[in-house]
């Protein structure tokens, strides 16, 4: 029986990941712990003392508000970062994908293999965060098992469109800007650290069209039973749309780059 083509591409990524998995997972584990302790418990102590917070956070503690959102933000950061230099590397530095393209593998199959790998890597990072959340009473719930796939889908909604774009770059000069001007602002203002109805009115629609907010709503709703996630189907549909369009775009840009 033959191995599916996307799996053969995935094997390359896995083989290389096996050399760095320790630092990747440690990072995925330590960072949310720092945010949970520093922001969740530290800032949370101040926030929860204010009477307004009952209204603003719908009656949950700041820790409960922040913790599940870290599943989605970690997915975004993990998916975003591995879609920049690492994808461009395959085209312009190591030529890994160029080499693959001279084997029976087709550009579309290479894109699918990358998508499969993104899924794996984001799932590993998100699971590490879920492991952290399981350490705390407030967030130790079976809902984490629902939040994990929601977070993975959020990560793909970033990873796939960004990968399509990265594969068209001739160098990596614009990559730091993606992190500074897209990922970090979303991380800060996308609804993880405070509800987006605290944003200026003109900014709120921006949050609604970014994938992160939808992912955070899903994760929060899954982990904290008293939170209403709103229209779940809409959240999932938006995330799926980003991911599917991103995958189709990857197939197209990979074909253009690998079959000139």
């Amino acid at each position, binding site marked *: 029986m033959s191995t599916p083509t996307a799996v053969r591409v995935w*094997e*390359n990524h896995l083989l290389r990941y096996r050399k760095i998995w320790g630092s990747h997972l440690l990072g995925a584990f330590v960072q949310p712990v720092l945010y949970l302790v520093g922001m969740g418990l530290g800032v949370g102590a101040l926030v929860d003392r204010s009477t307004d917070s009952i209204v603003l956070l719908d009656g949950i503690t700041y820790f409960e508000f922040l913790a599940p959102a870290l599943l989605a933000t970690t997915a975004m950061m993990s998916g975003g970062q591995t879609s920049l230099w690492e994808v461009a590397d395959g085209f312009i530095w190591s030529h*890994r994908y160029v080499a*693959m393209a001279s084997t029976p593998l*087709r550009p579309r199959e290479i894109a699918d293999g990358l998508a499969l790998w993104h899924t794996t890597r984001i799932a590993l990072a998100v699971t590490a965060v879920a492991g952290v959340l399981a350490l705390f009473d407030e967030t130790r719930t079976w809902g984490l098992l629902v939040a994990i796939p929601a977070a993975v889908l959020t990560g793909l909604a970033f990873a796939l469109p960004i990968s399509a774009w990265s594969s068209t770059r001739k160098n990596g000069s614009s990559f730091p800007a993606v992190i500074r001007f897209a990922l970090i602002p979303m991380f800060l203002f996308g609804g993880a650290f405070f509800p987006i109805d605290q944003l200026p009115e003109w900014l709120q629609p921006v949050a609604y069209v970014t994938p992160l907010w939808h992912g955070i709503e899903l994760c929060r709703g899954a982990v904290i039973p008293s939170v209403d996630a709103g229209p779940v189907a809409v959240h999932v549909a938006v995330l799926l749309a980003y991911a599917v369009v991103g995958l189709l775009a990857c197939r197209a840009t990979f074909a253009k780059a690998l079959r000139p």
Partner: protein
Amino acid sequence: MSDAVIIASDLRKQFDNFVAVDGIDFEVRPGESFGFLGPNGAGKTSTMRMIGCVSPITSGSLTVFGLDPNVDGSEIRSRMGVVPQSDQLDPELTVAENLLIYGRYFDISRSECRRRTVELLDFVQLSDRANDQVDPLSGGMKRRLTIARSLINEPELLLLDEPTTGLDPQARHVLWDRLYRLKQRGVTLVLTTHYMDEAEQLCDRLVVMDEGRIAAEGSPRNLIDRYSTREVLELRFAIGENDANAATLEGIGERCELLPDRILIYDDDGEEALGEVHRRGVDPVASLVRRSSLEDVFLRLTGRALVD
């Protein structure tokens, strides 16, 4: 001939407004070693990429193993090996892992990949580096590893794009020796080069390419016989004296080429020509009689020297 491995007819490749390959015809027969000789920009790599089914043809027709690259690209690629101009090795993996993972792209089982890796590393004399990282390897070793990698699927046809460019003379000879062994095993070799000696060493038959077209075709010996004399007399003069001396030398030999740094006189007997040069009272700074090479063929066909 219907059993040809590659048949191209009126093959063209155009990028936007630039025509890289401008209507070429050629056939490569099984077991043959076939070369594309030409300067940089002649269209050699574009041709190789079309044969390798990684660049769609613009017009004309091309078949590889009797199949159409547009339709059966994946199957064609599964039966050939490719040694690209730049090595494209995976720098994060070891020597052996590079072979293993490349074999997996062809869906060769892990155990079979491991078996072939041992064999191939032995063939390219890299067995002792199997577990080393790729980066510290010398240019010649990386090239050999790339060749080993291209053989992991036991290809019937091997494409080599400038296999020895950038290597030192010793590394080139090691590589030529390995390629010669492959040829003896019946692998069809198609290579591009801008080195005359490489073409003469490796190719049974070659085409001379220039500006996207084929200028001539034949065996190295045959091309030299057809387009050059048996011997060449090279004369060097002090700077600025080339033109004046060229006039005096007129009529010696069959033909004369005036290059910026020397004058070439084509004659079947170089010593005889040199005698005549002296009889005419011309006294070059240096003179050399040598056999004609493909360099002379190229000069004759295009009016330009080949080396960049």
